[in-house]
């Protein structure tokens, strides 16, 4: 046992020095994009974005890696091997907020830049975290999408949420209400709750259609609710009259966008997310930016991110999917 361990340690050291030498020789910035698991469309798309950033920057090599299933243990192994390879930066979408912290701390001790994106790591285990979006941007986008497809003179709009006790949902709805004065055409009539059950959401949507004859849009910031509402609108023969929008996944919404029940909906764009994470990792690793509260970090074509006191920032407003781009994204996630 101990011999095996020594051998392993020796091998690791050898790999370490070899990799370090290689890195110096190539003078490339090596950024590892660690995902929750390999083979997930969402992360493959993020990889595409990372490659785009690498091409733009020139001297960047992206190492796309992750465990085969979504476990923290698998990610720890992957990160350990990345530490051994002495990469310049690790950008991770974590399977567990806390489990990765000791390993990532070790990486930072070795001078490796560590950031988390998409799914975050506790503050002590990373230099910064990139959220795909923020509550405020999500709320604003939901109202904007509803307003964009209202007929002349506006109309009634209702919100179909998950459960009345869901923190995220309530934050988004609160943000939606804040921006309402900017959209005079949007007359928010009520908020109903489908509890993220397909049948209850469907029934609530049916109730909305009955109760509000002037209803022109349903905003459902939940993936179960938006699909159920779109189906209810279709079955009621109200396509073209009532537009269903909110947050959903392209693979789940493709049929309803094609039928016209949903003109547009939003969710983060994984390509932009991978691109932005790579840009940030590069800027931090090359010392062009430092991750501290209040810092503004450049993300290339996506813009800049401003960090809050927890060194967290929001990338951008959610990306809008409609008939023009749904086919491209429906097979991704």
């Amino acid at each position, binding site marked *: 046992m101990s011999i095996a361990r020594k051998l392993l340690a020796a091998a690791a050291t050898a790999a370490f020095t070899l990799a370090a030498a290689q890195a110096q020789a190539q003078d490339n910035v090596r950024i590892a994009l660690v995902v929750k698991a390999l083979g997930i469309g969402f992360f493959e798309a993020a990889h595409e974005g990372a490659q785009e950033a690498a091409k733009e920057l020139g001297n960047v090599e992206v190492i796309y890696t992750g465990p085969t299933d979504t476990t923290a243990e698998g990610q720890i192994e992957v990160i350990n091997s990345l530490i051994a390879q002495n990469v310049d930066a690790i950008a991770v979408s974590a399977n567990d907020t806390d489990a990765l912290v000791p390993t990532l701390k070790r990486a930072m001790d070795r001078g490796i830049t560590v950031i988390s994106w998409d799914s975050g790591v506790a503050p002590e285990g990373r230099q910064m975290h990139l959220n795909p979006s923020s509550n405020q941007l999500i709320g604003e986008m939901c109202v904007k999408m509803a307003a964009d497809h209202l007929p002349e003179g506006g109309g009634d709009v209702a919100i179909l949420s998950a459960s*009345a006790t869901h923190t995220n949902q309530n934050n988004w709805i609160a943000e939606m209400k804040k921006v309402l004065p900017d959209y005079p055409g949007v007359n928010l009539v009520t908020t109903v709750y489908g509890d993220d*059950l*397909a*049948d209850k959401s469907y*029934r609530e949507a*049916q109730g909305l259609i*009955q*109760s509000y004859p002037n209803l022109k849009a349903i905003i459902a910031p939940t993936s179960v609710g938006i699909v159920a509402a779109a189906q209810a609108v279709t079955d009621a023969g109200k396509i073209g009259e009532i537009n269903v929008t909110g947050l959903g996944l392209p693979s789940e919404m493709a*049929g309803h966008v094609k039928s016209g029940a949903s003109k547009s909906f939003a969710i983060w764009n994984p390509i932009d997310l991978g691109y932005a994470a790579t840009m940030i990792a590069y800027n931090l690793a090359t010392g062009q930016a430092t991750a501290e509260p209040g810092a503004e970090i450049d993300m290339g074509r996506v813009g800049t991110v401003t960090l809050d006191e927890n060194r967290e920032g929001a990338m951008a407003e959610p990306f809008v999917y409609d008939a023009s781009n749904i086919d491209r994204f429906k097979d991704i996630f």
Partner: protein
Amino acid sequence: MRLLKSREILLAAAILVLLAAIAWRFPGFVRPANLANVFNDTAILIILALGQMMVILTRCIDLSMAANLALCGMVVAMLNATVPGIPIPLLILFGIGVGALLGAFNGILVWKVEIPPIVVTLGTLTIFRGIIFVISGGEWVNAHQMSAAFKALPRAPLLGLPMLSWIALAAIALMALFITRTPLGRAFYAVGGNPTAAVYTGIDVGRTRFLAFTLAGALAGLSGYLWVSRYAVAYVDIAGGFELDIIAACVIGGISIAGGIGSVGGAVLGALFFGVVKNALPVIDISPFWQLAISGSAIILAVAFNARAERRQGRLILRNREAAT
């Protein structure tokens, strides 16, 4: 028999009072077209309540029906997504077959291994949900992956009502015939009413329970297809928590949890009562927190009423016996 009949009439009256109260707040609810919608929305619950009724009549309970529904729904949805060419009737028969098989699995455990039904079905509930996750990998089957015919069947109108409603009506008629006119149907009552006496009349209690579970499973399989095609989506958690709605519908309908008492009319009315409450709450604009409280109170009121009706009958018999000894 007269008592049972009057209980159904009372429940029907309660539904009418409920409808009147709703109409007072939202007149549009009692339009015939909307009432047809409510019936259509309740169709799946009715079919499942009929299945559950058979099981409860034999003094058992099936907690796995909603999970069975979800598994069958996922199987037919995945089959349709991968091989869109399979004719829909064949697919439905396949779904019913899978459901019956899952139900038979419950039945075998109750019959041959003699595990209490509540434990068996609590176990299979989680097993079925687990299997859905394994076969689907946690992925959804979405509207655009299902063939048009797959989604169209429950919606296809026939004489003004969608097929889904007709299927429920057919299930009610067949079940009424089956439960009142066939030896097996009567055996359900005998087994639940007094298992010991049933054995003396030559009824195999275990086998009868096994058949009740199998038939309930078949109905859950049918509902699986109907559910998935109606809501045009299949994922692991569909119909989550629905097993309790099914049992609640039966209990409201006056089917005794102690077995042996209940009727098709009761199960249907119980499901309809539940369906009216569920459909009315969204349109009469009541806070979601109140909605839960109101649904729950309706169940407890109905059960309390039924329990009182049953107890009165039981006490009279006991008193007579005590007086005799």
